[in-house]
């Protein structure tokens, strides 16, 4: 498994780490409270290690996507960032404060996975109520316009479509005029069109220089919106970098074929192939993206007309994540079996 992604794995991983370290250094050197610092953040639920010693530093104004499949530990991380749950080990610092103090100061706006607006209020009343809680809220009308909720502002919160509810929930997070916006899978419950509308609105908001952290399991969303993608799997950060790099990493293709008597060293010379593996009569060729897999496939057939049972498929996020974590676990030597905790890790938000 390691070999499949071999050539790319260490490279991006190291770059990701170096990004972290650089920012940490700056923060320490300036000794100025700024940004978001997660250090050695760890949280277990019973036997399940939901978050395993995460270190992450986010500069003020950065837009960061936490990308990962279900069970990666995204929600658990976000809950700790918001102070909704306490880490077993490690700490979270938001603009030099504890999460509780940052929340108390009204610096944080959050959109949780749950959090359906309460009933018996109109949208406008709800936002007015929420605004009253914060020390320096945005103007209610401004929020309604900005989030596209103005046209149904007089409607009861219970009489809204999924997309409308999502926008109202976003208005709830935004009315605080927060320095940090934390969004946990903000588009999980809405259709493709609603999703696009949502991100268009987000783009306007983010332009105001707010720090944004959002969790998603859509690579496209993370790619289109974030400055930086933090890839999480099974409680760890497995990659961290600009969207282009992460996309190349998890957007890979695999060619499988039945091919006799050709060495993998020879196969890996095909242009576009990043790694070649053999299992019995079958060979597996990893490619970075669909362009290179197309090219590699043509060359493969030209060179070896005897190749049979050809199959090209996307690696897919889930699989890419699992392979990445498998590497990680072997490297980490934490004494945990792969299959054992792979099954346990799933199903945790």
């Amino acid at each position, binding site marked *: 498994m390691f070999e499949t992604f071999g050539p790319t794995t260490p490279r991006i991983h190291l770059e990701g780490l170096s990004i972290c370290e650089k920012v940490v250094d700056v923060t320490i050197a300036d000794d100025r409270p700024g940004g978001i610092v997660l250090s050695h953040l760890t949280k277990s639920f019973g036997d399940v290690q939901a978050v395993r010693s995460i270190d992450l530093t986010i500069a003020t104004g950065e837009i960061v996507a936490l990308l990962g499949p279900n069970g990666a530990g995204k929600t658990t991380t976000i809950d700790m960032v918001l102070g*909704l749950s306490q880490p077993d080990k490690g700490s979270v610092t938001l603009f030099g404060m504890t999460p509780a103090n940052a929340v108390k100061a009204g610096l944080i706006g959050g959109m949780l996975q749950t959090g359906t607006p309460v009933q018996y209020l109109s949208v406008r009343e709800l936002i007015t109520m929420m605004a009253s809680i914060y020390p320096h809220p945005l103007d209610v009308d401004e929020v309604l316009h900005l989030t596209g909720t103005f046209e149904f502002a007089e409607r009861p919160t219970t009489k809204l479509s999924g997309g409308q509810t999502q926008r109202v929930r976003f208005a*709830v997070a935004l009315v605080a005029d927060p320095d940090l916006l934390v969004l946990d899978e903000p588009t999980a419950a809405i259709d493709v069109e609603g999703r696009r509308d949502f991100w268009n609105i987000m783009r306007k908001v983010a332009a105001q220089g707010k720090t944004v952290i959002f969790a998603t399991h859509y690579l496209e969303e993370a790619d289109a919106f974030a400055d930086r993608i933090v890839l999480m799997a099974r409680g760890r950060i497995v990659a961290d970098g600009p969207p282009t790099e992460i996309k190349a990493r998890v957007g890979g293709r695999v060619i499988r074929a039945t091919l006799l008597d050709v060495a993998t060293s020879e196969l890996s010379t095909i242009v576009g192939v990043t790694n070649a593996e053999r299992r019995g009569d079958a060979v597996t060729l990893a490619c970075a993206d669909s362009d290179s897999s197309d090219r590699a496939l043509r060359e493969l057939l030209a060179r070896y007309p005897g190749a049979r049972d050809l199959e090209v498929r996307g690696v897919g996020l889930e699989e890419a994540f699992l392979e990445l974590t498998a590497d990680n676990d072997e490297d980490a030597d934490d004494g945990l079996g792969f299959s054992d905790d792979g099954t346990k890790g799933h199903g945790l938000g």
Partner: protein
Amino acid sequence: MKNLTYLKFEILRTLRNRRFLIFSLVFPLVLFFAVAGPNKNVVVEGIHFPLYYMTGMAAWGSMTAMLSSGARIAAERQIGWTRQMKITPLSTRSYFTAKVLSGYMMSIFALVALAIAGTTLGVRLSAVQWLTMLLLLLVGLVPFAIIGIMLGHLMKVDSLGPALGGITSLFALLGGSFGPIFQSGVMLNVVKDIPSYWLVQASQSVLSQSGWPPLQAWVVIVVWSLAMTRLAIRVYRRDTLRVL
């Protein structure tokens, strides 16, 4: 409560909940008219029956109104709104204060509605008597405000509805809202340790000349309030630490 806007919307939300209005306002009124109406001119042991029955319904209605804050808390927990509020500067104390104050508001509505209903059946009390009754009831409701918060964090909405119905009925029955069930003996001593007994007594303070309830009433209310607060804190902690 610094934040009056928040409180205003909290009360508005409570008022717009029709189910709540039916249970805490309409039910006691209907029962009052059904039972006291035909006995409009009856006097038992020197006490005008509609007045007597009004005091019982006042205790029941105001208690139901107060405990229903638990149902609102449970509903907000279920939809994840409680967690949303936790990431705002609104303190847990303010959140509960708003719930208790809106519970009190509704209790007062229930009491005013019953007072008006009583007046239509010939109940006449002096301003001082009305006020004494109201104030004593408000004190007697304290343990129920805390029980409401505890139940709201203990149970899910689906089970809380029937549970609230059962709990209020049991409290009301034992407390004597529908008439005294124990005139003497061991059981009377037992029910005297229940806060609803003294809630009914608070309401009936206007019936007797002695007026103010005895020391035991205050002790029972204070002890129940403290015990329920401890329990509520435990339930709240367990609830908020729960894995989602």
